[in-house]
């Protein structure tokens, strides 16, 4: 392994504060430089490692840029047809109720072709975690307009910017599922700065812990960048994300679990 180091005197095992988790395999990620998918994979792997779920986790990888997700995190995986990850996760969770099941989907997979599966599985309150990566574009196929493309945003099929009169408004699917009674915890985060990565990791960890209670679907949206699809450098893309995407997709928890006594007003404890 070729590497460059800082001051070598400090490099001792007892001084280690951060290293790549052992759950990430040594395969080189196929993503473009600066892609938010890679960061999301890493925090997901760290959480599964910290929670000790490597034996029990079953992931559903989607169709889209993250289709090769099963190459990168060392747990059990199943590949779903385009958009059908929540349907497959429903089946797996019902067959293996003691496993931790999650899906990892992009916006083309979850908010376009798989809208019906997503909304119905959330409405049924299936006990799995949905991780939704929203970069406002179809990254893998060449940057076409997605349902989540924000108004005025340029893509290869809306070269003058998304015109809401002709092309309609973006779909805030996270806000939609937050209104459904079947969801237990719904949050929107981003991974474009160190602070936001840490917040996203905290929210995702909370979702994983809530999932073990089996009280409904947990849904975490991660607003991400797509430097190649947006035709920007990674640093510019992160800046653009902060200035344009985040006002439209504000970060924070959209639905937090109610305390037990609020759910059951009659109970005394």
């Amino acid at each position, binding site marked *: *392994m*070729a*590497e*460059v*180091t*800082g*001051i*070598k*005197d*400090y*490099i*001792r095992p007892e*001084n*280690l*504060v*951060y*290293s*790549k*988790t052992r759950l*990430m395999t040594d395969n*080189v*990620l196929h*993503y*473009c*430089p*600066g*892609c*938010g*998918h*890679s*960061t999301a994979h*890493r925090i997901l792997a760290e959480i599964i490692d910290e929670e000790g779920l490597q034996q029990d986790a079953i992931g559903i990888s989607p169709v889209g840029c993250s289709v090769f997700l099963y190459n990168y995190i060392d747990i059990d995986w199943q590949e779903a047809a385009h958009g059908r990850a929540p349907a497959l996760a429903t089946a797996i969770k019902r067959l293996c109720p003691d496993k931790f099941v999650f899906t990892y989907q992009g916006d083309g997979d979850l908010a376009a072709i798989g809208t019906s599966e997503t909304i119905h599985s959330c409405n049924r309150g299936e006990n799995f975690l949905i991780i939704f990566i929203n970069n406002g574009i179809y990254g893998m196929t060449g940057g076409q307009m997605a349902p989540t493309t924000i108004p005025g945003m340029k893509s290869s099929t809306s070269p003058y910017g998304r015109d809401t009169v002709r092309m309609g408004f973006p779909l805030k699917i996270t806000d939609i599922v937050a209104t459904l009674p079947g969801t237990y915890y719904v949050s929107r985060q981003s*991974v474009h*700065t*160190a602070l936001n*990565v*840490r917040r996203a990791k905290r929210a995702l960890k909370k979702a994983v812990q809530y999932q073990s209670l089996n009280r409904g679907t947990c849904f975490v949206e991660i607003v991400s960048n797509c*430097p190649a699809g947006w035709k920007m*450098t*990674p*640093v510019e893309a*992160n800046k653009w994300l902060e200035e344009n995407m985040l006002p439209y997709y504000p970060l924070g928890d959209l639905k937090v679990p109610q305390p037990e006594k609020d759910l059951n007003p009659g109970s005394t404890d």
Partner: protein
Amino acid sequence: MAKIRGSIVIDIERCKGCEICMVTCPTGTIKMAGQVNHKGYFYAWPANPELCIGCANCAVVCPDGVITVYKTKI
């Protein structure tokens, strides 16, 4: 008063040169190298290692997880 000092190790062959660590580093420790790795990317390297405080922000934002961080008090 004890000073906090850090040190980073960068796996340059996995680095894709996205520069996000460079803009995230609060002390200006990391710069992009003037030469490329085998994939052809200008990789990140600790140009000013004595400035590192071991905050791990670079490692937390690094999409490819190429940075390992060590921190100590001297």
